[in-house]
């Protein structure tokens, strides 16, 4: 089986190398022979997908057949591993995840090459660039991190099993989502670089890649948040974001990708920021690669150490080469990227996009800086320092709050110029609402002047409310105009409004989701935790909850043995639920793992929902009694709800606008105003 896989990978390398070289040669001439050569390159690109897919299938089949003659399967699977995790073996280790990356890239390339008739010349350039990235990954797979390497010596009876941290349902979804995001940004990157090299006229490349970019961004968003949820639900420390270098690596391309999604509208609408947009998409692609480099190289210590190896050098060289190529064409063809319009006013949508981009990039730089500062410190001072959560919280949070302010204000600004009168009128209701929210927090006893964390929490609440009220007011205002003209009810009118410009109003829904995520985060300063040894009938009092240990029990299956506590949760003297924090011991890997249990109090608290989070820490060796750690994490569930709304908003923004209905009338009328027609 390993021979079939190895052959498929080698074939894929040959095909993608041909696709790259033949495609490149075909770009130099514009005759019939070159066109035929280009066509063979396109077909080779399509065939690459088939070859990589075959390699992927072989690896999964090997996992299901417990083929431990393949070293990768031996190290990442075992006979008693559940089927879903055997499938996930494909991306559970170094070589497999690189193969999965290559497969996704080939899949994106397959779709792109099938749709080449949209613009054959531009697609040919993009195809060559995509093939070059594909060649890089296949070179690594064939010569540095071979997933089909065979075991030396005798055939082992069983594998060493999958890392226990990865044996969680979300790990079957989180890496594919993240990879779809990382890899997906290669497509807009390829189009952008292609358009730059060929001095493509107009902004059509942006229109072609708009949906690619949004879908990719959506996948990356889901991937980042699922990663956070995995950390919350599996690592058992009660938090969801630890500013780990690999978490940071996933956030950085998300930030530049978000900046690109905003600033690209300026290029579409006003022909501005062309160099900036090119730079942003280049940066997003390079940061995606940097994320992989960080995960693989081991230059920075991370909780993702399970994926480390020596292939970091390959990535460093590739990132350097890509940066050099992008910079060269950006400088050489800069005359092609001149802006077509001037800015008319500082108080305009254009300015808000400019400053929104600036703040996103500053947050991105802060994260990059903090992630690499330990290396810089070692170089300068001779010793490493730690740049952990306190640094990021203190530096990135204030900038993120400014960004939230712009998220609220930006949609109220018109393109070109906004009058103070109009801004005041539109801003009044959201501003009053958000100030009221801040007042309520102080009324309920939050003292923002006593502690910086309370100050940030209050500011975050006020600004989130501002974003939410802005979004609502935009929908209501536009809806009322349509309702007044078409005699629909307000709700129908708002739906109508959304259909007129799905991108704009879908974007507002995404902003709404972002505000909910921020609300979920701002509960952090009010977290509470208690750790206690618990025997039968022992209690933990935490906030309004009383946790009573009813019993302990244990179980065993071929994959792991486990023990768990049975804990009844009371509030106001009434039992509201029973929770089962658990500790497992995986047999194949001989590793223990805690599995927290989480109860979100929607039924009891509604808006001020709180997670009751229990961890079975282990046993006190002296007394033999289990240790339970209880966390009370206010508002956290809003983060996951916010994610769902962000994804919903992105999907709604992808829906094409409804066609404008032309009403013919014999009576001369004024041209109807386009309500909600601008982004």
């Amino acid at each position, binding site marked *: 089986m390993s021979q079939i896989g190895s052959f498929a990978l080698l074939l894929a390398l040959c095909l993608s190398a041909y696709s790259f070289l033949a495609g490149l040669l075909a770009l130099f001439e514009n005759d019939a022979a070159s066109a035929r050569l280009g066509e063979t390159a396109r077909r080779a690109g399509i065939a690459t997908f088939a070859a990589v897919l075959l390699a992927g299938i072989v690896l999964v089949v090997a996992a299901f057949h417990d083929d431990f003659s393949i070293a990768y399967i031996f190290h990442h699977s075992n006979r008693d591993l559940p089927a879903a995790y055997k499938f996930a073996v494909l991306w559970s280790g170094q070589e497999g995840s690189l193969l999965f990356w290559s497969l996704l890239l080939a899949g994106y390339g397959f779709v792109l090459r099938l749709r080449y008739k949209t613009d054959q010349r531009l697609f040919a350039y993009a195809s060559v660039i995509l093939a070059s990235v594909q060649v890089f990954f296949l070179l690594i797979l064939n010569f540095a991190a071979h997933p089909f390497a065979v075991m030396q010596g005798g055939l082992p009876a069983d594998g060493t099993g999958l890392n226990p941290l990865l044996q969680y349902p979300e790990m079957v979804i989180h890496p594919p989502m993240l990879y779809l995001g990382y890899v997906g940004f290669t497509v807009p990157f390829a189009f952008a670089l292609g358009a730059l090299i060929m001095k493509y006229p107009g902004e059509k490349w942006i229109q072609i890649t708009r949906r690619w970019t949004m879908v990719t961004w959506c996948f990356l968003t889901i991937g980042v948040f699922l990663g956070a949820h995995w950390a919350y639900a599996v690592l058992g420390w009660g938090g969801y974001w630890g500013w780990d270098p690999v978490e940071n690596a996933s956030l950085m391309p998300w930030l530049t990708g978000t900046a690109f999604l905003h600033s690209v509208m300026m290029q579409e609408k006003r022909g501005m920021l062309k160099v900036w947009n090119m730079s942003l998409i280049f940066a997003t692609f390079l940061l995606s690669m940097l994320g992989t480099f960080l995960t693989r190289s081991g230059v920075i210590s991370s909780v993702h150490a399970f994926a480390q190896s020596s292939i970091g050098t390959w990535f460093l060289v590739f990132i350097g080469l890509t940066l050099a190529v992008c910079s060269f064409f950006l400088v050489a063809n800069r005359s092609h990227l001149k802006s077509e319009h001037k800015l*008319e006013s500082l108080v305009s949508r254009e300015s808000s996009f400019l400053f929104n981009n600036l703040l996103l990039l500053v947050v991105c730089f802060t994260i990059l800086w903090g992630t690499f500062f330990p290396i810089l410190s070692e170089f300068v001072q001779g010793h490493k320092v*730690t740049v952990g959560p306190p640094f990021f919280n203190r530096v990135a949070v204030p900038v993120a709050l400014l960004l939230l302010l712009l998220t609220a204000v930006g949609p109220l600004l018109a393109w070109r110029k906004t009058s103070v009168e109009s801004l005041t009128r539109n801003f009044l209701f959201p501003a009053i609402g958000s100030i009221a929210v801040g007042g309520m927090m102080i009324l*309920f006893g939050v003292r923002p002047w006593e502690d910086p964390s309370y100050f940030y929490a209050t500011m975050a609440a006020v600004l989130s409310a501002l974003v939410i009220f802005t979004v609502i007011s935009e929908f209501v205002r536009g809806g009322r105009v349509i309702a007044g003209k078409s005699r629909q009810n307000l709700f129908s009118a708002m739906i109508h409004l959304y259909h007129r410009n799905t991108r704009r109003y879908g974007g507002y829904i995404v902003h709404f989701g972002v505000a909910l995520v921020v609300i979920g985060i701002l509960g952090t300063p009010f977290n509470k935790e208690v750790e206690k040894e618990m025997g039968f009938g022992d209690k933990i009092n935490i906030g309004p909850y009383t946790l009573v240990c009813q019993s302990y029990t244990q179980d065993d299956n071929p994959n792991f043995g486990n023990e768990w506590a049975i804990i009844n949760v009371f509030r106001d003297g*009434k039992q509201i639920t029973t929770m089962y924090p658990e500790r497992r011991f995986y047999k194949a890997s001989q590793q223990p793992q805690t599995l927290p249990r989480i109860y979100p109090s929607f039924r009891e608290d509604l808006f001020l929902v709180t997670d009751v989070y229990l961890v079975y820490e282990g046993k006190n060796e002296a007394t033999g009694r289990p240790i339970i750690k209880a966390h009370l994490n206010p508002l956290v569930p809003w983060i996951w709800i916010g994610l769902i709304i962000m994804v919903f908003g992105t999907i709604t923004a992808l829906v094409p606008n409804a066609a404008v209905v032309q009403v013919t009338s014999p009576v001369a009328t004024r041209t109807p105003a386009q309500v909600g027609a601008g982004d």
Partner: protein
Amino acid sequence: MKSVLSLRYPLPGGTVRHWLQSTTLALAVLAFMGAGDDSARFKDLGHRMMCTCGCGQVLLECNHVGCQSSEKMRNELLAALDKGNTNNDDLILQGFVQEYGPTVIAAPTATGFNRVAWIMPFLVLALGIAFAVHIVRSWKNRPEPALADGIVIPQGSELDEFRRKAHRETDL
């Protein structure tokens, strides 16, 4: 799973009850806000240090099963606070640095080269704002691009009149 204490679940509550409960929780949140006692210092200092087992987590957040480092460090921190021989948190942290090395502190200190870590993001922000303002100004002063014959862009009062007209018609 049967509970020995109670099997009853609360009935679905009305909005008023939800609000009352929400208010209660909000008030309970207030009670969480601690003062400057030893437990608050323990929490604060424990969040300013990293666990040295290699997990990359903050000391009080390390929950590695069987982690020897975090338990030892927590006990040392408690002992340092119990001794009461110093009210200076920096001295306690310094003691940990001497024992475990500079990487035990969770964020760069505001001394020497480490200051650069703190200054750089804000410097970039300031430079970025200055650059953005410069860009906006240069854009504003840029000459209008050439237009096709016959097209005239409305300016001044004429543009304002168009805007007023648009507002009247769209109420936007």
